[in-house]
């Protein structure tokens, strides 16, 4: 008896955070800084900042396959290797697909990083604030449920996050893409400047701005600045971009309140029906396979959208026979991604006397949403909208026919300038796009897997036509030649913005979380990763997860102090 009490005490913290990726790292920092003894549970291995970035300083010729995929890499990572950021230098940060299977009811690329830092190591680093155009969208057009918050609720938290992580960008004063607190913008190159000027001349409703990116372009809190190597997904020894490993977890650790436990697979959230609160979580050690329980007053689930959803679905009790907090029946439903992989590219005649410096800018240009933003831009064929990311550059080499001295010389000088833009579109929340627990098919640990059943529908497909056509039109109007459109039609998941399976809402009957990301039916459980999203907007989501997390942590500690949770 005494032993049990002792063990319970040793395993008790003020707060538990499940997951150490982009939102889990933020929860850890905020809760630790507010004085809570916080246990962070990460299912994957530890990745220590800098020390474990084993490929970060390697030159191209040090890789036997010069970064290309080998047959062996493809066998171990048949799905992860579909990702643009997967290569010989980053493969260690992507899951082994054989050990971590899921079931594609319809095609879905589930791209994952199971390690301390999660996908914050390999993320795309583009950060854009949402606006009320996004937060009001569900209420206005009737898709999904109304967001329980508006821009004014999150705006101060965007600022709080931006000041800490460092965001480089250019203020533009657009209502649909609010400006943030920006460090100096990265520079556009000659062709990008030219195209931006032409677009401004020819369109009243759209602009080209430099990408807003979580890179510090000046020294910031001892970090950086960015060295323009563009090797980010290997981990940055300069801490030039934001990652949990380099920024939030060290801040959490500095308080003395952080306990980080890697190799800890959270199996379920423990629930006490008498208090209607969670008491902790049950964990499987990834190596010993032994289970252990940890207890806390507050539980934050930040296991990434589908990881968190899996934990909720696997947490079954008399009170929650259909998954933790799932009184609404919405858990696992309304899965969204962004639809992308569509756009246009072209060549440019000119600027032969211009080039870029040696820097490899880890960022592109951005064309903010210009459809369905006001009465004059409403579309007949679809609701919501899209933005473009892209970039111009001067290629290497002029032609590649022939062999010998002439070929060699032609390949050692810059070639033509070219530019491409690709579009990211909003994916509506559809109830029938869902994940369910499959207890027949098990993973390497004998745990249930997820069936993923998700698709793009008429609204997305109609939008894609405009995404391609508008891209072609803009590049042609800007004077590019040989403009070609493309639509690679990647399946959902490929954009790595999966979200929405435990959505926030005003009504417990139709949503899983309230306006502060609390599970309606268990107020000391918070979900602030992508699972909480009630719609998808068309901008990259990570900074919104970060801001929602900081806001929820503030609320959690305030409620804790008041004795409300």
């Amino acid at each position, binding site marked *: 008896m005494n032993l049990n009490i002792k063990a319970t005490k040793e395993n008790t913290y003020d707060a538990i955070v499940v997951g150490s990726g982009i939102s889990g790292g933020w929860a850890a920092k905020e809760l630790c800084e507010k004085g809570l003894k916080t246990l962070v549970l990460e299912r994957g291995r530890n990745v220590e900042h800098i020390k474990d970035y084993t490929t970060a300083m390697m030159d191209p010729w040090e890789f036997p396959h010069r970064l290309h995929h080998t047959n062996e890499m493809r066998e171990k990572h048949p799905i992860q290797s579909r990702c643009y950021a997967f290569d010989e230098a980053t493969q260690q940060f992507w899951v082994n697909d054989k050990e971590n299977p899921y079931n594609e009811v319809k095609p879905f690329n589930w791209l994952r990083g199971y390690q301390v830092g999660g996908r914050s190591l390999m993320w795309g680093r583009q950060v854009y604030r949402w606006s009320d155009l996004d937060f009001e969208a569900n209420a206005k057009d009737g898709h999904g449920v109304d967001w329980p918050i508006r821009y004014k609720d999150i705006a101060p938290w965007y600022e709080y996050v931006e000041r800490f992580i460092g965001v480089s960008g250019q203020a533009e004063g657009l209502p649909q893409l609010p400006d943030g607190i920006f460090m100096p913008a990265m520079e556009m190159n000659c062709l990008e400047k030219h195209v931006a000027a032409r677009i401004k001349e020819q369109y009243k409703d759209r602009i080209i701005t430099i990408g807003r990116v979580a890179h510090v372009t000046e020294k910031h809190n001892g970090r950086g600045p960015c060295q*323009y190597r563009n090797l980010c997904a290997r981990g940055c020894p300069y801490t030039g971009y934001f990652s949990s490993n380099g920024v939030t977890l060290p801040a959490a650790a500095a308080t003395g309140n952080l306990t980080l436990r890697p190799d800890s697979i959270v199996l379920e959230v423990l629930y006490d029906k008498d208090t209607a609160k969670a008491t902790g979580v049950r964990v499987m050690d990834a190596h010993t396979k032994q289970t252990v329980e940890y207890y806390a007053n507050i539980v934050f689930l930040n296991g990434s959208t589908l990881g968190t959803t899996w934990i909720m679905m696997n947490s079954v009790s008399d009170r929650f026979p259909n998954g933790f907090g799932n009184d609404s029946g919405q858990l696992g439903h309304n899965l969204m991604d962004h639809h992308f992989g569509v756009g246009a590219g072209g060549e440019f005649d000119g600027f032969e006397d211009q080039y870029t410096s040696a820097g490899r800018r880890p960022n592109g240009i951005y064309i903010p949403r210009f459809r369905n933003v006001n009465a004059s831009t409403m579309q007949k064929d679809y609701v919501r909208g899209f933005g473009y990311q892209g970039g111009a550059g001067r290629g290497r080499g002029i032609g590649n026919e022939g062999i010998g001295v002439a070929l060699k010389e032609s390949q050692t000088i810059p070639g033509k300038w070219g530019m491409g833009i690709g579009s990211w579109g909003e994916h509506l929340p559809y109830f029938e796009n869902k994940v369910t627990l499959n207890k027949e098919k098990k993973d390497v640990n004998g745990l249930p897997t997820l069936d993923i059943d998700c698709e793009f529908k008429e609204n997305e497909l109609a939008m894609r036509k405009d995404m391609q056509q508008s891209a072609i039109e803009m590049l042609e109007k800007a004077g590019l030649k040989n403009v070609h459109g493309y639509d690679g039609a990647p399946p959902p998941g490929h954009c790595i913005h999966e979200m929405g399976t435990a959505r926030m809402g005003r009504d417990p009957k139709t949503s899983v979380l309230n306006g502060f990301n609390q599970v309606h039916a268990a107020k000391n459980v918070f979900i602030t990763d992508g699972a909480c999203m009630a719609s998808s907007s068309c901008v990259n989501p990570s900074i919104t997860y970060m801001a929602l997390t900081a806001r929820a942590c503030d609320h959690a500690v305030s409620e804790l102090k008041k004795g409300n949770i």
Partner: protein
Amino acid sequence: MHRRDAIRNVAILLGTAISASTLSALEGCTGSAPKNYDLHTPQTKTLVAEVAETIIPTTDTPGAKAGKVDEFIITMMNDCYKKADQDIFLDGLKKIDEASKKKFSKVFLELTPEQRTEILTEIDKERVAYNKRENKKDGDPAHYFQFMKDLTLVGYFSSEPGATQALRYVRVPGKYDGCVPYKKGDKAWAS
């Protein structure tokens, strides 16, 4: 998304150009194959080294041999290509010798540098004609010289001498200027 599109889109997004040859080399990296013994014979290595050196010769900067392009090609063929493509490649080496014998009555390694250039120039024209053929279908085999040439270019320009001497390589640039004057003859940046 087709891999070709994916690569192209990423290349465009990052503002870096990627040559058609690189694209097709990457396209080859599919499927799986056992280690191929024939790729590892000294004869194969020597012939690959000399063919690569003919494609990218030593000039005022080092050539393919100095960049150990032969090792790269054999590693890539072994680890990244499927058996059918390995066979096309190995068969192609025989075809280079056959073409050499037909024209000069000697195998490729016995030819003078000028003769080697002449033979491979003809084969490259054959490659271009093959790629422009009518009735192209998905899944058609690549021309054997496509692999040889693509891998030589990729391997050389990502090798240390290729990147740092034939091109300009700055390991830690530290800054980015979007518009700088370009003087004719300035070398391109390695990436």
